[in-house]
């Protein structure tokens, strides 16, 4: 039986035992507020980074015109004949990153396909954690490895290769990045629904055909996101290039030459004691700002691509 209540029922008084417990309520709010402050610490960190980079760069750009900064082909801010062109540092950064990616993208992708489509459950369980260990090795160790092991090895192949060059550290950085790319790309591939694979196998396709023609295209945006985040890592990597690529700003894209990256410049300068407020001190913040902008761009593109991919499945 449905009773027909046409009017809104009148408000009722609240009995004491069911009334809101104010003390508990306030306590809960306080806790929530404290937790929120903690979450805001992440925002505060970002803001501090941005403010400090912008602030110091701002004074830097009072001395140096933005035009010179972006177009001059020499970077010698600490010397008599000072030039403030960021291009040589950018070229070094891009070249080492490009080498790293030339190593990491093919190997990482192949590895990801292997792990996702070919490896048995057992193999995957063993190989993946070991690959993750590679991510844990301190980069300073990789730096010496590039300088004292890989470069001499490369010099056996290219005798005219100088001791500091972009090739060796680029390759080492690439190997460092393989696990990032392979594990993220593998996640993307495993997110491809099994029905897609079954559809392909049911047509008489082999594993390889299924992997290349169906799974990879289906996971492509996730794989690209993995690449982009890999680029961001390569661009921001410091110790490997600072130790092994040489520290001379050099506008070149030739991997056989030595060059300084943005990160290497910052470390190199920071090893001395720069007076707070000098142009040299500000220059590392200006360089840092460029670095931050580059990685931020890649990170954002990467996250957008990944998010888009997640939405598909």
């Amino acid at each position, binding site marked *: 039986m449905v009773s027909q209540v046409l009017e809104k029922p009148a408000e009722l008084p609240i009995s004491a035992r069911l009334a809101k417990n104010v003390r508990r309520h306030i306590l809960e709010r306080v806790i929530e507020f404290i937790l929120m402050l903690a979450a805001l610490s992440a925002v505060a*960190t*970002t803001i501090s980074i941005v403010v400090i980079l912008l602030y110091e760069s701002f004074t830097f750009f009072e001395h140096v015109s933005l035009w010179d900064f972006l177009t001059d082909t020499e970077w010698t801010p600490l010397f008599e004949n000072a030039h403030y062109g960021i291009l040589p540092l950018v070229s070094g950064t891009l070249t080492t990153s490009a080498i790293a990616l030339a190593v990491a993208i093919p190997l990482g992708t192949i590895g990801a396909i292997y792990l996702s489509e070919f490896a048995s459950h057992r193999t995957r369980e063993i190989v993946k954690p070991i690959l993750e*260990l590679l991510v844990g090795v301190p980069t*300073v160790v990789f730096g010496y490895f590039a300088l004292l092991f890989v470069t001499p090895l490369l010099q056996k192949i290219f005798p005219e290769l100088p001791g500091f060059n972009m090739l060796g550290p680029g390759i080492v950085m690439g190997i460092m990045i393989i696990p990032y790319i392979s594990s993220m790309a593998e996640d993307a591939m495993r997110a491809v629904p099994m029905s897609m694979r079954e559809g392909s196998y049911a047509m008489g396709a082999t594993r390889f055909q299924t992997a290349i023609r169906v799974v990879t295209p289906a996971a492509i945006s996730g794989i690209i996101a993995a690449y982009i985040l890999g680029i961001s890592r390569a661009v921001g990597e410091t110790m490997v290039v600072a130790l092994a690529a040489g520290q001379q700003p050099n506008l070149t894209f030739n991997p056989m030459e030595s060059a300084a990256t943005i990160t290497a410049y*910052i470390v190199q300068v*920071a090893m001395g004691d720069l007076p707070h407020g000098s142009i040299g001190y500000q220059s590392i913040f200006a360089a840092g700002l460029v670095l931050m902008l580059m990685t931020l761009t890649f990170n954002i593109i990467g996250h957008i691509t990944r998010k888009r991919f997640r939405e598909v499945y």
Partner: protein
Amino acid sequence: MTTQASVLENLAEVRAMIRRHKRNDFLFSIVGLLALMIGLLTLLTLFVDLVADGYPRFNLDFLTNYPSRRAASAGLLSAWVGSLLVMLVTFFSAVPMGVAAGVYLEEYAPKNWFSDLIEINVTNLAGVPSIVYGLLALGLFVYGLGFGESILTAGLTLGLLILPIVIVTTRESIRGIPVSIREAAYAVGATKWQVVFHHVLHYSSGGILTGIIIGMARALGETAPIITIGALTFIAFLPPSPVTEAAPFINFDWLQSGFTVLPIQMFNWLSRPDHAFHINAAATGALIIVVTLLMNGTAIWLRYRIRKNIKW
């Protein structure tokens, strides 16, 4: 209908084709395994290389001696103690903050632009190069707040550096707890905080722990931000002890102390003219690798166990 026999008609041809295609499968399995092996072989080579160079220093003296001008008697005492103290600060700055932030984002944050903002922030922070944290430390802690080149500065810097790692793993492990458990707790009258504290944090503690260990391992190996802060190179004594014999038993002077850490000591030894120091550097490198691999290995093992034991 002729088509129906299309496979049977030229069965030999079809079989040859299948065999050809299957060869690709086989070749790719090998190529794929090799691609993965390259990473592992690198790790192995690197480690063997360091051990081969550094083995003469593998003894207890190496850990109990201070640095010295004589390579053979130089040791890591001040470096590993420095690393330990820096990590202590890192732990206490990053862990409570990161876990609390993760809990807030997962359990409390309303779904609006504000939490989106924090969310985007955290993901981006995770991708900020470590050297930029060094710049932050230089501008904020060293000069802005006047902490100088101290253990406190280094610890806080690395704390900020691993904060996103802690936040992200906290969120991931919290997300693994089913709604039904939360609802069960609410249904008997638990408050939000009780649900979080008695259940959410409790059941995700293993996962959070793996994140903390991975973060701390990362902090241990970080070099670039410490260089920008400016760690000391020769320090042949230990910072004031955090625990004292007399009341109040705790002492915070060590926070302001100068310091050196393992990667910096390695860095310093490698820049010596005398090759004997390079042996020390290799031994230090091997030590750092062993410790970080142990930490990461523990974390991976822990995560594996948690995944295996999950019942819901």
